[in-house]
């Protein structure tokens, strides 16, 4: 069994704490302890904790599958064969996506939006943002590097960019209001798909063998710039549809979201895996 360095042990404990607090609060609120959700006077407004539990498990499974797959097949050559390091980096994935839920709170999202207010658009926002975060983190694990600190650096680079794009989008287009107060499912799906597409691109932009801090940052900008194209395009689209009715363009939004995903996938396919 490999020995963890003090720094790695610190990251392990920090990741475990973040995962337990972030994901645990969802689980607690969504299912386990929420007697009120189970025992509401009216099932119409409170569907029962089981849904919250299943939704949370789906989120866990998605994060676990994405991160574990990338680490097992594309991580550094000394990480892949080591169960301890695979465990460490998968746990980091849960920790980072949990921190992402706290960033969502700055966006205005609250757990109550999903389970108490039964806002399907908030569900969509949460799961797409989580998948985007998992992709952005997974990319940071691809390639060889000197240690966990470069994974943290790349994760920070991709996530700060992801969150900044979300904030700019929200500031120009009232995105948080449209999703969390209007409950507009179409906008939630389109915006969520944009986040997933951007998360995947940013993940790819930080992937590869470690060439140093400056070279990594320059590579990140060289490969990740299409993320800004998604932001600009969706902002223009959102501005044109700012005054429309709630769910007024549901199917158009869904189609646009799928186009975002296909476009990002095509871009990543053209790029291929890092050398």
């Amino acid at each position, binding site marked *: 069994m490999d020995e963890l360095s003090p720094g790695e042990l610190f990251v392990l404990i920090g990741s475990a704490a973040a995962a337990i607090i972030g994901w645990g609060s969802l689980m607690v609120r969504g299912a386990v*302890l929420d007697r009120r959700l189970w025992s509401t006077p*009216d099932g119409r407004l409170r569907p029962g904790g089981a849904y919250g539990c299943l939704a949370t498990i789906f989120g866990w499974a998605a994060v676990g599958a994405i991160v574990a797959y990338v680490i097992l097949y594309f991580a550094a050559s000394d990480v892949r064969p080591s169960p301890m390091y695979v465990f460490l980096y998968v746990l980091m994935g849960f920790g980072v996506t949990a921190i992402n839920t706290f960033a969502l709170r700055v966006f205005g999202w609250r757990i109550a939006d999903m389970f108490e207010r*039964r806002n399907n658009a908030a569900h969509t926002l949460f799961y797409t943002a989580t998948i985007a975060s998992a992709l952005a983190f997974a990319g940071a694990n691809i390639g060889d590097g000197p240690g966990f600190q470069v994974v943290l650096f790349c994760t920070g680079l991709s996530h700060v960019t992801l969150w900044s794009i979300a904030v700019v989008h929200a500031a120009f287009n009232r995105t948080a209001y449209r999703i*969390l107060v209007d409950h507009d499912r179409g906008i939630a799906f389109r915006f969520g798909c944009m986040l997933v597409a951007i998360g995947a691109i940013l993940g790819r932009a930080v992937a590869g063998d470690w060439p140093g801090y400056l070279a990594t940052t320059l590579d990140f900008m060289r490969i990740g710039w299409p993320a800004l194209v998604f932001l600009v395009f969706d902002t223009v689209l959102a501005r044109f549809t700012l005054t429309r009715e709630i769910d007024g363009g549901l199917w158009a939004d869904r189609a646009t979201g799928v186009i975002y995903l296909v476009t990002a996938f095509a871009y990543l396919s053209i790029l291929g895996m890092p050398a």
Partner: protein
Amino acid sequence: MLPTDVPVPQGLPEDARELFEIWAPVASRWSGWAKPVLFTYAPPATSIALPAWSWVGAPPLGSGRTAIVVDLPGNEGIACGLALAERGFRPVPLYNNTQGEGAEVIALDPFVSGIRAAAATLAAMHIPDDAPPAFLIDSNRGSGGAAPGMFDNRWAVFAQDFPSGRALLSSGIERVVVMRREGAIRVDLVSVLRLWRREGVASERFDVATGAQGELTQDISLLAVFSGHMSAIMHGFRQNATGGFGARVPLPSEGGGGGFG
């Protein structure tokens, strides 16, 4: 909706489902915003009567194009809601705090008792399904201090607790009247009014004690919206792990405490 033969879950009053149906009937378009928290508690040992309600002056109730936010202390808000129901409004309780161990910062019994006391009268009224809403909140929701060992159930409202401006406009609501007594409107409600104003829903104030009324103006700049957004994020109240607001303030020796959320 649950089938009627599903038993009321353990720990809930037997009439909880029936009571909630009276206050938030399936057919009303505003029922989705009603908070079920109060309905999950058994009635207090000593029933607390609702205060008598009489209008001072002429409240600006409009003609179906006005929504009301009743921002009054204690069960006075429920009494006002009942009076508004007589005038064709659908009262929507948004009270969102809980009971727990220790002395409560906001006593919940008057609300639990008031909801029950008003139910029979409300059930006898035939309020149209498309009646405009009267949202009931407690003006003391953020007042008081919480000492260690107390159950801190102070709470705040968020934009998500109300229909959006767009949803109000699409239901024909163009204006919101805030009914309250003297004093400044709390910042959480101001943020909600500001966002409504940005969507095109105007607001005014009616003082139930004096009958005075006047337009409310809000700064709708991006900076003001951002400031309101940040204050909503950092409200500082204790959320309950099981929903709503309320948690025991830990004693210094205990550390931690509070809920998630």
